[in-house]
């Protein structure tokens, strides 16, 4: 199969590889075999995302931003939709293969954005990232967030008992979108237990997190870091 560099020019991605939203886009680029140049936007030390040059690209001061030739797009879930659509005939079919597949992918990607993300994000912030930004994590908020997440996972357990992945029996944008936050919760906050106690969710996580593309991204984003093998 032709590699990305032989069929399409590289895109420019503004962000940092350890950021959840940038990771979401990088994973999609890897699955679609689209080459990219990473333009580092330091959100911790130099706070590049708050500077005027970046605000011109992204008025809310949030990474990532994708530049493809003469246009740029922000919001990671809009970026991955664009890449998946533009490179439909190449790499992993992240929208499935039928119109009904696409509708299910859109539904479950919205579920991730509207139900999963709001439940997991506070836990990851308060348990892992707050200190990086000079703030104190609140374990009470983290606990409430995990409780909310478990209710979402109860729904996922039911869905994943009927199909291998969220939108059907194919890996899609919807599953992909879950990888970055979940990785942090399981490997850094050591809360794999809430996934392991739901057998279909456990199987699904094992399947998506052992994809060679994800493993490759982790080795680049977190060089030298050990990750527990799921299902071991």
């Amino acid at each position, binding site marked *: 199969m032709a590699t990305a560099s032989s069929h399409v020019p590289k895109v420019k991605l503004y962000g940092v590889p350890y950021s959840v939203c940038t990771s979401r886009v990088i994973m999609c680029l890897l699955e679609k075999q689209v080459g990219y140049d990473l333009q580092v936007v330091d959100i911790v030390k130099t706070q590049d995302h708050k500077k005027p040059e970046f605000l011109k690209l992204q008025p809310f001061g949030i990474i990532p931003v994708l530049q493809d030739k003469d246009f740029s797009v922000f919001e990671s879930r809009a970026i991955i939709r664009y890449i998946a659509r533009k490179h439909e005939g190449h790499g992993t079919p992240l929208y499935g293969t039928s119109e009904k597949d696409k*509708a299910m992918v859109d539904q479950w990607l919205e579920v991730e954005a509207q*139900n999963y993300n709001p439940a997991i994000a506070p836990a990851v912030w308060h348990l892992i990232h707050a200190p990086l930004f000079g703030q104190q994590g609140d374990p009470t908020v983290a606990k409430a967030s995990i409780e909310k997440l478990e209710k979402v996972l109860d729904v996922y357990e039911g869905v994943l008992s009927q199909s291998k992945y969220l939108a059907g029996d194919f890996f899609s944008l919807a599953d992909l979108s879950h990888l970055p936050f979940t990785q942090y919760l399981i490997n850094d906050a050591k809360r794999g237990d809430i996934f392991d106690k739901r057998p279909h969710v456990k199987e699904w996580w094992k399947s998506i997190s052992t994809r060679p593309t994800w493993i490759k991204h982790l080795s680049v984003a977190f060089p030298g870091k050990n990750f527990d093998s799921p299902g071991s």
Partner: protein
Amino acid sequence: MAIKIYGPFRSPFVMAVALAIYEKDQEFELLMMDIKSPEYLNNFNPFGKIPSYQDEDITLFESKAIMRYIATKFADEGTPLLGSTIVEQALCNQWLEVHSHSFTQPMVEMARAIRGNPQQPDASVSKPALERVNNVLDTYEARLSTSKYLAGESYTLADITHTPFFYIFNAITDDENKKCITSRPHLHAWIQDISSRPAWKKLTERPENPHYKQ
């Protein structure tokens, strides 16, 4: 009737789906169901939320997924809603995400404060909450000073998803809080444009509309 929507009309998410259907020159039945009932959870939306959508081919939930499906299924009918190029479609999706992640929460927070104090709506919104709304609307003003609609020159789902929110905002605010809109000329003009579309007028004239006046 082929298309069924489940949920109360007063929800801006229900209204957005309904508006997309009307823009596509289609009709729908608006129905209610107990969203916590096993029947609803098992057959429509396992998260117990509204809206849900059903036609002869599919059952869907999440308003933005439903809107995308409608825009694609009826691509050749009514108004095109996904932009005319892949770039416009990307920007349509971008502003749908902005609606979800940056717009909705500050607007809902402001609406809740106002509704919690109907005697003095203008006084009830906290300064930080008002600042959050104004910051978001600044970005919209900047965007709409460079293009007619959010995704570019084409009216798309990105605009549709906002129309009901501004309709409700207009209904519940007094003159002071309305300045969030009226002080921003491009934002104001865009809201007037999207709110004067025949499909939107048709929707607001449905008897289920709690703001409907004879």
